Every structure is written in C-alpha cells, then in structure tokens.
C-alpha cells in the first residue's frame, strides 16, 4: 500500500485529466477542432444525434428500473409509477430467475424476490402484467442468461391476452458477453449462448418487429470499475461479436442492425459522459458502414438507453445523490439518450422506497420540462471543448478496441479471464484514488461528518411473506398444470438444443404456454450444453 495515511482536508483544483486519462488543456481553441467531422443531426455519422430535431420530435422514455418480492407487489409499484408519469416499464428480476433456478432450488432459497421480482413461470408473468396494456406500454427486461425464456414468457402473456405480437414494444437485455465479464448471471458456455441470442434476435425481427431483442450493455463493466472510454470500447467489441454471429447465420446487417440497441452508465464527469455518446455514435456508424458494408441509414443509427447513478452514488450523506443523479441526467440528455433511468438516492444500498423512487422520476421531469435543455437538438454541438473531447474519446475507444483485437478478440479475452482481470485492476485503482483523496467523492473522502450517523428518513423493507407466497404459488402451478404436456414441450426443446438448424424460440414459447418453469427449461438446455466454467484469475 503506497497511499498516505491521511488525506488533505480540502481537495486541490480539478485534475487536468478526465477519468479516462485524457489530458485537457486550459483552453480549447477553434484551431484544435476538425469542423468537418461534426456533421449535422440526423445525418451520418450522427455525431450530433440520430434525429434531425433531437427531442422536439419525441422526448426520451422515462424508464425506471423496478421490481421486488412477488408479482403482485411489483405490479402495484408499476401502476404507481405509471400514475406518476413514467412512460415505459423496466422489469427487475430476482437472481434465481436470472440464473435459471426455480424458487425452491437450494441455491435460490435465500434470494427469492430480493433484488427483483420472481418470475418462474407464466402464471407469475400474468400477475405481473395484470391490468397493464401490453400493446401500448414499452417494457424492458434486464435479463441475460435466461433472456430468451423471459422473452418467450412475455410473448405467451401477449398471446393469451390476444395482444398481437406485432404491437409489442420493449427490450430484452440479452447481452451474455458482458455477463461473463462483469455482471455474472451467465449459465451456459459462450458458444451455445451466442446461438440462443442469435435465435432470439432472428425470431424477434420476424415476430415482434418493434421490439429490441438485444441491448448491448456497457453499464455493468463501467460500474464495475472501467473508464468511460473502456465502457464504450468493451461494449462495441461485444457488439461486433454479435454482428459477426448474425452475419455468419446469413443475416443482413442492413436489416437486423436497426434493432440493435445499447445501454450505458452515466457517471459524474459531465463533459466526458456527453462526449462518449457523441463519439460512440460516430464510431459505430462508421464501423458498420466500412466493416460490414451497411448502407441503410436507419441501420447505422446508434440507439441507446442509460442509467444515471450506480457506483457514483454513496451510502454516506445519501441526499447528495439526488444532485448527482440530476447532473448525470442532464449529461444523458446532452448526449442524446433514447431512454433514461435515474437511480433513486437510496438505490446504492436498498430497494428504493416509494418516496425515493418518485424523486428519481421527478428529476427527469424537471430536466425534461423545466430546464429547457431539450429545446434544440445537440445544444453543445460546435463547442470547442465538446468537439475536441469527442474526438479524443473516439481515439481512446478505438485504441482499446484495437487492444482487444490484438489479444485475439473479445470472446477469447473473456474465456481467458483477461478482460475480467483488466476491469478488476481498474476497480482497485479507482478505489485507491478515492482512498488517497486524488478523486473527490463529497461526503466520502472530503466534507465528511465528524461522526457516522444514519441519515435516511425511510427504510425499505421487503414483505417477509413475499418469498413464501411465491413458493406456494409455484407449487400450485406444478400441481395443477398438464404435466404430460410440459414433458412433451421440454423434450422438444431438448431435441432442438442439439440441432443448430432449429430456432429454439418457438419451442420456448410452447414450454411457457404449458407452464414449464424457468428452472425446467434451463435444466433441459444444461443437459445438452453444460455450464460456463468461470476463469478465476487474480
């Protein structure tokens, strides 16, 4: 440990380097900016945004991530949020559902309904969406290892209610590569996982043309510790792996790329965050055009959602987080996000209360309707600093993507544990920078209260009966469903798992309709595919 044992009582002047390590001059002048690279909003390469009129045509979606306990409790919270003006749902699922365990599995017992809602079979999904209009509401699922199954379940709910599939809008995260790197809800090895993702994308493009079958996410590697430039670079490297997979299956990127979407964190360095999005849009469009020969302008558009908060929030002086999220929310808007989730101020350490969840949503409404920053498209376009930093961020992310290519590609870097290691080391660096006072976190390493004290007015407590309710209902479903039908649909799924020429999605939908459980479907696939072996490297 080289850190000093005490840190200065007040921070020095802001660092001349951005968190991604870019050295920023005192002043940026016109001659440092290449005006020819900027272009116009709504036009290739989309530095200034994918729409020519920005948010004047349509505001971003207010999409608060929410879910806990049982389907009924979560359904109630959704109705509350919609009544408060939320415009899209974002479903948080519990870890057993995410990792493919039924609520009665030994590994699951401590975690049913803890970090999200339990969704083990169609009966739960029916309760979750009870009274909500699936034809109107766009629904996003943060689900990866079991994404194809949850998507199938959503289709089954729509089918049963008579909602035409073509009307469904929303997103499944469905990005397994970053799970191996940072989020950890992987199940199967890389190869069959990539096949399952390709199956779901192909099926979704046919069946639910308005639905995003993948949201390639950098948010989790970012929150795990990497820089903004690395966040984009790792994500685009994964995105190229998915594009390669789909192209190898005969897909036309002019078509499928229109439904690829992205998801990132917004942390506290205001301009770096804005510029990373401007740079990512430009880099992605150029790569699709030059590497994959994409010509359709719509397929070149980099569409993304964001989350504001995460590890930039602190458990100390939690009300400060409201300000942090407000600043991050503004950066997301200046960066041109299509959907925004603002974390609640207590989200760093508990499931938000109704009050904190409401403040998070109000933050977005204040930014959207009071601040006026959405009045004109890309209001910072042409700023010397913003354009200069956009160029630097683009160079930085291209450099990192090159490093991954040099290593042998993203899949190899993941299977070897190389990327995981890079992120862990970055995380330790960031932690030590905070510990030794080089990176300022108000209330944590500077401007602390002399004595520790609890400052939270309201604490969220899960209904302790929720898990029991979920388990009882699960048993009832297993007792009352047509078990012969379940066995038949699972057998068909198992058969198809061994055949690369069969799309698994229709079989998963059949399983869901028969009330097969997530655990049963996952176990069936595991029998044929095995499980991912995590490379543990320190």
């Amino acid at each position, binding site marked *: 440990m080289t850190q000093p044992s005490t840190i200065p009582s007040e921070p020095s002047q802001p660092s001349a380097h951005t968190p991604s390590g870019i050295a920023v001059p005192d002043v940026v002048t016109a001659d440092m900016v290449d005006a020819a690279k900027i272009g116009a909003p709504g036009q290739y390469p989309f530095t200034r945004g994918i729409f020519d009129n920005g948010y004047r045509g349509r505001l971003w979606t207010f999409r608060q991530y929410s879910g806990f306990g049982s389907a009924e409790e979560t359904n109630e919270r959704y109705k509350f949020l919609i009544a408060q003006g939320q415009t899209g749902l974002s479903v948080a699922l519990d870890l057993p559902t995410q990792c493919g365990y039924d609520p009665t599995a030994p590994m699951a017992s401590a975690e049913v309904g*803890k970090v999200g809602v339990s969704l083990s079979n169609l009966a739960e999904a029916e309760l979750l969406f009870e009274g909500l209009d699936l034809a109107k509401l766009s629904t996003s699922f943060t689900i990866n290892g079991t994404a194809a199954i949850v998507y199938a379940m959503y289709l089954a709910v729509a089918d049963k209610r008579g909602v035409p599939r073509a009307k469904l809008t929303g997103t499944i995260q469905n990005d397994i590569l970053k799970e191996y790197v940072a989020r950890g809800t992987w199940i199967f090895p890389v190869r069959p996982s990539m096949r399952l993702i390709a199956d779901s994308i192909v099926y979704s493009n046919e069946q639910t043309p308005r639905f995003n079958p993948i949201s390639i996410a950098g948010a989790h590697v970012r929150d795990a510790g990497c820089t903004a430039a690395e966040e984009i670079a790792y994500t685009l490297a994964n995105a190229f792996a998915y594009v390669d997979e789909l192209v190898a299956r005969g897909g036309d990127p002019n078509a499928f790329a229109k439904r690829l979407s992205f998801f990132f964190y917004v942390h506290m360095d205001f301009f770096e965050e804005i510029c990373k999005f401007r740079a990512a849009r430009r880099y992605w469009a150029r790569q699709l055009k030059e590497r994959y020969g994409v010509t359709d302008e719509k397929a070149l558009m980099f569409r993304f959602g964001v989350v504001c908060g995460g590890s930039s929030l602190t458990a100390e002086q939690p009300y400060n987080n409201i300000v942090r999220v407000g600043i991050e929310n503004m950066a997301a808007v200046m960066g041109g996000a299509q959907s925004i989730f603002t974390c609640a101020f207590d989200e760093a350490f508990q499931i938000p209360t109704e009050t904190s969840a409401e403040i998070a949503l109000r933050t977005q409404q204040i930014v959207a309707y009071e601040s006026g920053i959405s009045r004109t498209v890309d209001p910072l376009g042409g700023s010397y600093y913003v354009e200069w930093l956009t160029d630097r961020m683009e160079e930085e992310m291209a450099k990192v993507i090159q490093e991954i290519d040099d290593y042998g590609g993203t899949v190899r870097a993941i299977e070897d544990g190389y990327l995981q290691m890079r992120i862990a080391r970055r995380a330790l660096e960031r932690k030590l920078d905070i510990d030794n006072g080089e990176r300022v976190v108000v209330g944590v390493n500077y401007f602390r209260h002399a004595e520790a004290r609890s400052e939270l007015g309201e604490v969220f407590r899960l209904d302790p009966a929720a898990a029991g309710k979920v388990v009882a209902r699960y048993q009832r479903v297993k007792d009352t469903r047509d078990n012969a039908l379940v066995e038949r649909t699972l057998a068909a799924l198992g058969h198809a798992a061994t055949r690369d020429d069969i799309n698994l999605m229709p079989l998963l939908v059949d399983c869901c309709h028969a009330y097969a459980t997530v655990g049963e479907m996952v176990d069936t696939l595991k029998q044929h595919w095995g499980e991912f072996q995590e490379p543990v490297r320190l």
Partner: protein
Amino acid sequence: MSLVGKRILIAKPGLDGHDVGAKIIALALRDAGAEVIYTGLRKAPEYIARIAVEEDVDAVGLSILSGSHVQLVRETMRCLREAQGGNIKLFVGGTIPQEDAAALLEAGATGIFNASQRIEDVIAEMGRQLAAS
C-alpha cells in the same frame, strides 16, 4: 499491519454476480502480503466451508450485495463449524445495512466492512483480528 503468512479465502456465496468488491479486496490483501484464494461466483456455503478447511485458511471473507447476507452468513458459519472449521474467522463485506450488523456478529462474523471504508483500514482491522487469534 502485515498480513504476511496469513491465508485468506475470498468467497461469493449465493447468486449475486457483483464481484468487483471481492476482487478489489482479494488484490489488495495479496498486495498486503496475504496468500489469497478466490472462489469465483455462485458458491454454496457448504462448498465455501469445505474449501476453507481444505486450504487451511485463517479467514474467510464473504462478499454479498444481494441483501441475502443474514441467511448466507448463518449458513456459512454453520457449515464451517460442521466441517471442523469453527476457528476460521469470518469477515463480511458488501451492502450491509447498519441495523443488520448485530445479527451478523451474533451469527459469528468477526468483522463487517462496506464499500466506502478505506482499503488500508480494512486490511489493518483484519490484521488486528487475525493477530489476536
């Protein structure tokens, strides 16, 4: 406070996939001289206890961010005792609300750490506790 000669198992019980904290602390403990073993994700308490005893560690550090800490700490302690590892000290890190600290200590945890504590302080505290054993 030196951790030279100490063997420490860093473990992720349950299904929680947030392993940054576990990895940060594993790397930092190693930098401080300890021999560190990391389990990887999603390990059952029985497995963690078995590895701890087999590897003859001085301490186990559990990293839990899913809110399931009380149950998982109790389980791991029980498994450690059953595997004749009752003398192994158990530390817990993650998102642990203050009001749960008493329950964890009562279950047998030696120390509880959170993300905003300085690594230096965490290592010093672990060193003190392990020197006392």
